[in-house]
């Protein structure tokens, strides 16, 4: 009888011990772009190297993802273990204690290899809250063949006045060729990202030292008038609905003589499967006007761990892997050296093979080195960020201002009306948020 009881107990104990160790599930919320899709494609490689971690992907469009992640992190929903966030969210969420600090990064990871400006943009008081997957600045793309034909020469860093004179010469709408393509589609990450850098170079800023908006000042007025005038006279029709993708399609199909946008576009316009002008593209720094401060923006898509995650250690393991030098090497082997995530690590640009394979790399490096989120305006400013102000209210304010600027470009209101309304809206929001009374 005792034997039977012992056997039953032993069987029960054996059954209670799982035969295989259950893997930790790491759910990653990310955006849909080339670099992230390539990372998703290497899931099996990661799981092979770390068999006790399973990766689950939630890929969403940028704005949807932002809303989804914000809801989850603010309510401590715990649906994600790794979040893809931008340079705007990282310091705000980090300060609120919503993100796990990246304080114990292993030495072999070489955190000092990350561009200092990117590292600072993802930190609060020296504590890193996210590790960059890739980063970008902005620059000028131009058609070398058209410039040659017209006897024009693009300077290393043109001024907006020069850009305007080039656009005037190269604008031939009857032949489907437009002098310049710029963002016009409303959105804080669309037209306002570009327009803020333009205003920076005209000597403007979003807020003065007392957090009062400056839309009705002479800098914003002259910059927005210049922008509307430039695009209305030498831009493509319907420019107010063109964002990054629309301009990329126009430039890639040979319709734009010049285009100012993200350095990430370099890999698209030089890719023969996506572009018809691969060998006719020149690169220059983003234009300046009264100052070169804040001419090129700085943005990074980075990986962070929400405080509500139940798999923090596994999530860290994944993030170290996905943002490491070894990952870059793996991508180079699998997808070609030009496919390495750009802008995050300095060592990428020390690699001669990469510099030769990616004709846009040298200018990207220069633009990344010049962008400084702490010093991007002529006059002093109370906020961090080149093309945004890293405060929670900015997203809502800039979305509304973006619509007004797009309206001014479309001709549904004057520049003066758009700026006055922007001043009113921003003042109201800043007062409501108690920045001042």
């Amino acid at each position, binding site marked *: 009888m005792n034997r039977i009881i012992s056997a039953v107990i032993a069987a029960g104990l054996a059954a209670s011990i799982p035969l295989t160790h259950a893997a930790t599930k790491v759910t990653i919320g990310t955006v849909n772009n080339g670099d992230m899709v390539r990372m998703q494609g290497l899931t099996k490689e990661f799981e092979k190297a770390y068999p006790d971690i399973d990766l*689950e992907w939630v890929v969403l469009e940028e704005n949807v993802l932002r809303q989804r992640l914000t*809801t989850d992190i603010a309510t401590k*929903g715990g649906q994600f273990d790794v979040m893809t966030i931008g340079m705007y969210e990282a310091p705000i969420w980090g300060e609120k204690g919503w993100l796990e600090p990246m304080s114990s990064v292993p030495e072999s990871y070489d955190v000092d290899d990350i561009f200092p400006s990117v590292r600072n943009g993802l930190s609060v008081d020296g504590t890193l809250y996210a590790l960059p997957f890739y980063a970008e600045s902005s620059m000028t793309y131009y058609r070398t063949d058209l410039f040659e034909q017209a006897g024009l020469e693009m300077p290393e860093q043109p001024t907006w006045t020069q850009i305007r004179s080039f656009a005037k010469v190269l604008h031939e709408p009857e032949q489907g060729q437009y002098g310049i393509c710029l963002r016009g589609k409303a959105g804080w990450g669309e037209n306002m990202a570009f327009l803020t850098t333009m205003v920076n170079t005209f000597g403007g800023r979003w807020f003065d030292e007392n957090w009062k908006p400056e839309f009705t000042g002479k800098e914003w007025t002259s910059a927005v008038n210049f922008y509307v005038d430039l695009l209305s006279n030498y831009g493509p029709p319907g420019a107010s609905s063109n964002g990054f993708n629309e301009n990329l399609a126009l430039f890639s199909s040979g319709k734009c003589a010049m285009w100012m946008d993200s350095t990430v576009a370099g890999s698209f316009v030089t890719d023969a499967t996506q572009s018809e002008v691969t060998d006719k593209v020149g690169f220059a720094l983003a234009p300046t006007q009264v100052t070169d401060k804040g001419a090129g923006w700085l943005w990074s898509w980075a990986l962070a761990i929400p405080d509500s995650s139940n798999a923090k250690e596994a999530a860290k393991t994944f993030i170290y892997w996905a943002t490491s030098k070894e990952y870059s090497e793996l991508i180079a082997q699998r997808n070609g050296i030009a496919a390495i995530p750009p802008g995050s690590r300095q060592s990428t640009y020390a690699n001669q093979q990469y510099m030769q394979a990616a004709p846009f790399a040298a200018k990207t490096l220069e633009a990344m080195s010049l962008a400084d989120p702490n010093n991007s305006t002529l006059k002093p400013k109370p906020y961090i960020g080149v093309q945004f102000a890293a405060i929670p209210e900015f997203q809502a304010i800039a979305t509304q201002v973006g619509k007004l600027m797009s309206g001014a470009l479309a001709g549904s209101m004057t520049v003066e009306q758009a700026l006055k309304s922007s001043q009113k809206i921003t003042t109201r929001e800043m007062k409501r948020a108690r920045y001042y009374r």
Partner: protein
Amino acid sequence: MLSIKQGKQLNTVLIGLLAWGVALVIFFPIFWMILTSFKTEIDAFATPPQLFFTPTLENYTLVNERSDYLRFAWNSVVVSFGSTAIGMLLAIPAAYSMVFYETKRTKSILLWMLSTKMLPSVGVLVPIYLLFKNLSLLDTRTGLIIIYTLINLPIMIWMVYTYFKEIPKDVLEAARMDGATLFQEIWQVLLPMSKGGLASTVLLSLILSWNEAFWSLNLTASQAAPLTALIASYSSPEGLFWAKLSAVSTLACAPILIFGWISQKQLVRGLSFGAVK
């Protein structure tokens, strides 16, 4: 001068042409989506848009490689059929009592139910999210079934109410006189008489649940995400994506489109039920 007969013929031709025109305008976006799904990204963005091009299956191959289509499709099937079934189970008795045992508050209740559809979903996102989090319903099919049932219930009750209204009360009274129980009265008399209307309610609920995107994007992550979440994963702020997005949208629309096609007879019958008295 046209004779009366010729005038009538001309009228018929004109109405026919107008109907074709309207049908083409409605169908054009779907046609363009299917066409774009067979283009390369460069062709998809070409200006002027290309009607003739070399077709490719590369977008479908890529979607197949990148995503587990069947898992998303299965989630869509379970969630839309599940919520419709539960919704009908609730809508039929509710509409029955409102039609055949009407009180002075019935009209107000019907209006109140409809008014819940006027509230923007995003207004209740945070409370619902917190509720789902505390009940462990986030990223579960059960959670989505509950929310879809609640969303579609007002419309379902309204539709069933309208169809039941068409049934003469005398017929049910006759059944009762013959000794039918409440269940028999509903199951054997009422439901067969309003079959067409119920079928169109089921179809409408299925289509609404299948296409719902706000809650499915916000309440699911990796496990319970339906096809609407799959579509959203192919939109990109940086890079060309129209052809891939068209391919995944075609794949997402196909099952419900085919289902609608097969059952269009019931749908048309149900929708026109009561229109001609």
